[in-house]
């Protein structure tokens, strides 16, 4: 599970696409089909999770005179 957390949305989508293609296009032995399905469902949940829990961060990245990075929350809003 700890490993799955690191899978980016794009990669997750890619894995689901791969699984869907396999299930759609060829005859897969039952046990393997169920395994693929379970993996796919887990990845769908993971991707949904990523979409739901993306916490918006707005930052301004500055640099101090000593070359130190300084991060500030951006406070300006954009109309529209």
């Amino acid at each position, binding site marked *: 599970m700890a490993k799955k957390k690191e899978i980016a*949305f794009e990669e997750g989508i890619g894995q689901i696409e791969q699984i869907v293609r396999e299930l759609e296009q060829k*005859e897969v032995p039952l046990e393997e089909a169920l395994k693929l399905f379970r993996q*796919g469902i887990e990845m769908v949940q993971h991707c949904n999770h990523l979409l739901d829990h993306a916490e*918006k961060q707005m930052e301004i*990245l*500055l640099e101090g005179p000593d070359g130190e990075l300084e991060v500030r929350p951006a406070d300006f809003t954009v*109309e529209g």
Partner: protein
Amino acid sequence: MGYDELEVKFVPRIWTVAELTTEISRTLSDNDELVSCWVSGELSNYKNHRPSGHWYFTLKDQSSSIKAVMFRSRAERVRFIPQDGMKVLLRGSVKVYERDGNVQLYVDELQPSGLGALYLAFEQLKQRLSAEGLFDPERKKPIPRIPRRVGIVTSPTGAAIRDILKVMGRRDPNLSWVLAPAAVQGELAPREVAQAIARLNRYGNIDVLIVGRGGGSLEELWAFNTEEVARAIADSNIPVISAVGHETDVTIADMVADLRAPTPSAAAELAIPVFQELRLNLENLNSRLQVGIQAQIARKREKINGLAASGPLLNPLWRIEQNRQRLDNVSSALQQEMTRFVSDKNGILKLLATKLDLLSPLAILGRGYSLTYSSEGKIIRSSTEANTGDHVKVRLHEGSLTCQVLTKEEREG
């Protein structure tokens, strides 16, 4: 040195005019500086010659002038209409027009001055970086389809940041971004833009960079035509989308960037997918996954049904019934055989009885034969066994006779 001495010491070479112009020609073409040179000056006596389409003019400044020709194939590429009095910058080669012996400029490129100087710098930098391979398609990094965090390099007060954030908010309201502020015009701009790109690379955890500013004059966009910015983009580990000015202005930064967007808004559109589409795509994949597994299971079920419909599995008692039927068949056949066998035996018995009957002496008597016995009861088989006057008994089929022998013959033929 007196005039007389000169005459004595040097025999002067006498040139023909053709030899002289050829020599001038050769000398000019030996000088690399003159084969391709940039010259600034003012246009005069401009004439677009018809029907050839060649341009003829004189380039001059306060103290001198030189004739210039621009052939049609080159002139067609010039983006402005030349006018007398216009300050220009041109590139060309110096050659002799041998018929007149005139030294002329043969012009390859023509730019209005002012812009001309920038244009020159632009062209030179472009050639240098191109030769280094900085624009090669193989160098371009792919732009991630779904970035988690976007880095932006532009002025915090300019139009570009407003445009980018507006598009971004519309497409994915939750997307995170980091702005590295930089002046995008003026003397400090090249350094600040380059540093901001490097800073975002150091900060990390950023999937794509948008580097740019809104539209402006060539001078205003100039930071994006500098080597400093070009190299910062080329050195970026994060893929860069350039977004400089409006569509017609192609800058060096655009050429080095991994992807060129015509405007900052377009850059945001290229970088950020529409959140709703991501959601829809995921839902679509999810339902395909469900359908896929159902189809797999349905196919297997069909296969099982097909097998079940074929005989043995349909009725588990089938084999027993089959065996029973076979047994029935065999036993009734056996019965038939037995019956036939038995009745055949009856036939044989009848036949044998008949044969036996035929052999019985009684049966022989039945056909008219008779047996003759002596008085002692012995069967008489030859006339010699009886004498004339003897009494013999003759056994017939039915009953018997007692007879007297009257005569006898020894042997019958």
